Structures are given as structure tokens and as C-alpha cells.
């Protein structure tokens, strides 16, 4: 069986703004030669600090942008060579949760409307029933769908963002710093919710964060990135107990409670 997601040697660089009139700007390589595979129902954690390329990698996996070289295969399909109609159909099977629930929910629309958006975009039917089901799955009530985003706390808004991501019944969820803006006690509730959903729905997950302990508590495998390059990859347990790269070791020290 083909793996759910295969990322093969992807590289992505950007041209920076020019500094003088006569010379083109310098090139920044945001992601350089990253490869991994993800099986159904498994979680890959991607850890890195700002500028590590982890969000660029997420955008390529989501087909929001294309790699310069390399390919991203979802269930055997090369995402970046699909036609737009095929890509749209396939999109309902991979969805994303962002850091800032404010930025991803329209303040003038009811929560139910926002949750149904990916369904409308992919042309599904029975919207109301699916929205109610998603609200219940994230621990909210169907009646909450008639409210507006400002009526919810930060943790509840992140639940709504998750409901919107799972409403299409995806096989893969990409979460980019999805709990970073939350208080510790709320963060634990959302992490548990993600674990619940993963087990109930058989979701595969790519969980991206700068916070190594958070990633370690739900990832089967981990990929540590720095300045666009993969530093270390492996099963979470062995990477935590016997890190090989100095950089991983220093991230472990920085994240610990005791000096």
C-alpha cells in the first residue's frame, strides 16, 4: 500500500528584495532537500525555531505553494502536477489548522457558516448534519454553531478551527503552531482533543511547533529542522532519549523545566 504522504527531496527558495538597482536580490533557501513519508493514522512532529522552514514545508504539503524541485505525493498523487479541479477534489482529504483562530474565522459569519466553508469549497452535500457532527466531535454543542466567533474563548475558537478542518473527514491534518497561542491548561485540553480525534477518525497528523515537549507528547516520529535543513529525524522515543545532533540536544535542554 502506498503511504498516505510522501515528501521527496523538496526544496523551495525565495528571491529576497533587491538591495541595489543593478543587482537582483539574494536568494533565501527556505527548505532544502527534505524527505519523509507518513503512514495512515500516524503523527509526524516537525520541530524548529523561527526561520527553520517548517511553515514553508507545511504550505508545500498543503499545496498552497509548489516546491522548486522535489515532489509531494498524497495517496499516490503528485499534488503539484494535478489539475486545479482534481486538486480541489483531493483537498477535502487534507486540511490544516493554524495558530491564530481569529485570523481563520470570519467575525461576521456564524461559526456554523465558517465550519461549512471547506465543504462548500469542495462541493459536498448535507452541510448542516456534517457541521453538527464536527461540533460534537470537538466537544462543542450543535447549538454553538449559531453563535459568532467573539462569543468564544481562545480555546473554544481553536476547537472551532479544528472542527472546520475535520468537517470534510480528511485523512491528514496539518497543524501549524496550533496550540502555541494558548495558555498551558487550555493547551493540554486541545492536545488531548487532537489525540481523541486521531484515534476516533484514524487521522494522520503533521504537527508543527517550536515547542519540543509539546510535539513529543503526541508525535510517533519527529523531524528536527534548522535553517531549512533537516537536522535529525527518528522515532520520538529514541530521539528524546538519545538525540544524535547537538542542536536537538540543545532544544531538549531549552524545553526542560529544570536547568
Amino acid at each position, binding site marked *: 500500500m502506498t503511504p498516505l504522504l510522501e515528501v521527496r527531496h523538496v526544496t523551495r527558495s525565495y528571491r529576497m528584495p533587491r538591495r541595489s538597482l543593478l543587482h537582483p536580490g539574494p536568494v533565501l533557501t527556505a527548505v532544502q532537500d527534505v524527505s519523509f513519508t507518513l503512514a495512515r493514522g500516524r503523527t509526524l512532529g516537525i520541530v524548529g525555531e523561527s526561520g527553520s522552514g517548517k511553515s514553508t514545508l507545511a504550505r508545500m504539503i498543503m499545496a498552497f505553494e509548489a516546491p522548486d524541485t522535489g515532489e509531494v505525493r498524497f495517496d499516490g498523487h503528485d499534488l503539484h502536477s494535478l489539475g486545479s479541479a482534481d486538486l480541489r477534489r483531493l483537498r477535502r482529504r487534507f486540511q490544516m489548522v493554524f495558530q491564530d483562530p481569529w485570523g481563520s474565522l470570519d467575525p461576521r459569519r456564524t461559526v456554523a457558516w465558517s465550519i461549512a466553508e471547506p465543504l462548500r469549497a469542495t462541493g459536498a452535500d448535507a452541510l448542516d448534519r456534517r457541521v453538527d457532527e464536527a461540533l460534537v466531535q470537538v466537544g462543542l454543542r450543535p447549538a454553538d454553531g449559531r453563535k459568532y466567533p467573539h462569543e468564544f474563548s481562545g480555546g473554544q475558537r481553536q476547537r472551532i478551527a479544528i472542527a472546520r478542518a475535520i468537517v470534510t473527514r480528511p485523512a491528514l491534518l496539518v497543524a501549524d503552531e496550533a496550540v502555541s497561542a494558548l495558555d*498551558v*491548561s487550555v493547551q*493540554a485540553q486541545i492536545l488531548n482533543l487532537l489525540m481523541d480525534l486521531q484515534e476516533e477518525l484514524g487521522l494522520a497528523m503533521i504537527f508543527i511547533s517550536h515547542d*519540543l*515537549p509539546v510535539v*513529543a507528547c503526541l508525535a510517533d516520529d519527529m523531524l528536527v529542522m534548522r535553517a531549512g535543513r533537516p537536522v535529525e529525524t527518528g522515532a520520538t522515543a529514541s530521539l*528524546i532519549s538519545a538525540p544524535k545532533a547537538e542542536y536537538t540536544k540543545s532544544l531538549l535542554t*531549552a524545553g526542560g*523545566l529544570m*536547568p
Partner: protein
Amino acid sequence: MMALSGLSVSFDTAQALRDVSLQVPQGTRLGIVGESGSGKSMLGLSMMGMVPEAARVSGRIMLDGTDLSGASERLWRRHRARRVAMIFQEPMAALNPLQRLGDTVMEPLQVHLGLSRAAARTRALELFDEVGIPDPPARLRQYPHEISGGQRQRVLIALALSCDPALLIADEPTTALDAHVALRIIELLVDLAERRQMALVFISHDLAAVARATERIAVMYGGEIAEEGPTAAVLENPRHPYTRGLLGARPGIGGATPARGADGRRQRLPTIPGSVPPLSQLPAGCRFAGRCPVEMPHCADTRPAAYPLPGDRHAACHLLGAGA
């Protein structure tokens, strides 16, 4: 150095701080931890005399033997910078983008200390050197956008130190920084506090940062101090149910618990049920009532005292009261 007793800060519909008592002796490092809405930032602002005008303040604020409760803005301004200084989370927002870093740091030296421009420049170079900014003469000519977030925070620390304050209040100074950079800023703050015999109040939601930066810790919830004591003791053996919940909810590395149980299900994190209520909807008794796993019938209506515990610490929980 600074002592607060029975400090309360209220607004029309809400009490942001209730009966907070704290002491920060000279040269000591106190951490204030709490989640959003715990009142930790309001506490920091109170120590700077920067409580919003609409607030009603009661209780005492003593700075080095001077009673500053209800002091005028004019009086506070005499103490700010020279006695107490503050740094904030977002260094970019606290620096004037149109002003060279040198001018920013020299301004208080000229205004507060009356130094000449040349003397202020010499002092600014020393300060940049002291906070570990490489090549100070070049940095003085730069603008905030030309340096990294960690370097900006160092500039703000230099600015805060410019008038040799006896107390530095740091409100989430490492929150916007990467883990490695944050560690170095914490090391710098600890080092400065020790070398200058300066008191440090380190306010953060980040338990790991506070654990490294401080000797004592006050855990805040709902505008009150839930628990206070030596940092290591409180983190190793928390006595207040909220502190316990907070520490438990934080993912640790390589703990005793396996990532997956025998049934293959992933280990869940312990959680505190519900979420922090808005300040206007806090229970009248113990602020943690309604979310507390060991709540008793009278907790929601009766306020627990700050019960003293062995090892120079105390916690505000009825379970620790007489005979319990």
C-alpha cells in the same frame, strides 16, 4: 526593596487584583507565573505606578521605605527609571523605529541623570557592552529594524539599566523569542541581578523560563496569589491545587509515563477542567472554585487565607487550613 501589602485593583465590573501581598528584598529574583487573566501584568504595572486611571487601588506599595500608595504621577516619575525600571514582551513596540539605538539609550541618561552628550555616549557604550551587545559603537548608529529580536531585547535591557535601577520588572521578556535566544536573555538577567545586587521581578506564563530565572515564585490565579515560595520547592512539590494542575498540564520530556498505554492508546495529558473565567465572573470565595478537583462545599463562598507552610512558603487553599 519593594513590598506590597493588601494590594487590590478594581475596575467597574471586575477586580483585577485582590489583596496581594509580596516582598521583593534587594538583590532577589521573584517570578510571577500565571495564565492570561491571572492579574500578573496588572501586578507588574502596579509596581511601576502605571495602573490605568480608571482603576480603584487600595493597599500599600512601599518602595525602599517610601510609601507610594496613591502617589501622584509626578512622584512616581521621580522613582521610575532611577529606582524601578521595566521591560516588556515585544521589544520592537518599545523602541522608536525612527530613532537610532544610541539616541534611544542616551536620552534617559541626559534627561534623568543630566549627563552631557559625550558622557551619555560613553555610558551607553558601557551599557551595551554590559548586556552583551557586540560592537557597541556600530550598534549605536543602527535602527531597531536592523537588529534581531534578541538583540532588541538586550537594547531594552540596557535602556532599563541606564539609570541604575534597584528593581527591574520584566514582563514576558522571553515570550516572543526562540528558545535558545530566550535562554541567553534569562542568563543575562540573572547575571545582571547578581552583579548589580538588583532585584528582579520576572513575570511570565512560561514555567520553564521562571524556573531558570528566579529564586522565589508566586503563582497567580484570578487576581490573587495562589501559592508562593522558593521556586524549586514549589515546582517540585506544589501545594495549591491550581499549581498542581498547571504543572501537570505541561507536557514534560521523558517522564515516567509511556507515550502509549498497553492498549496502544496515546497517554492523555492531565487537564484542569473548564477555562479561566472572565474577571467579572470569578467566584467570591476561592477564585479556583468551580475548576478545582478537590473542591469542598464552602470553597466558592469562603475565601481561603494564605496559609503558611514549612520552608518559607504559603498557599491559599482551605485544604491547608488548621487541622486539615
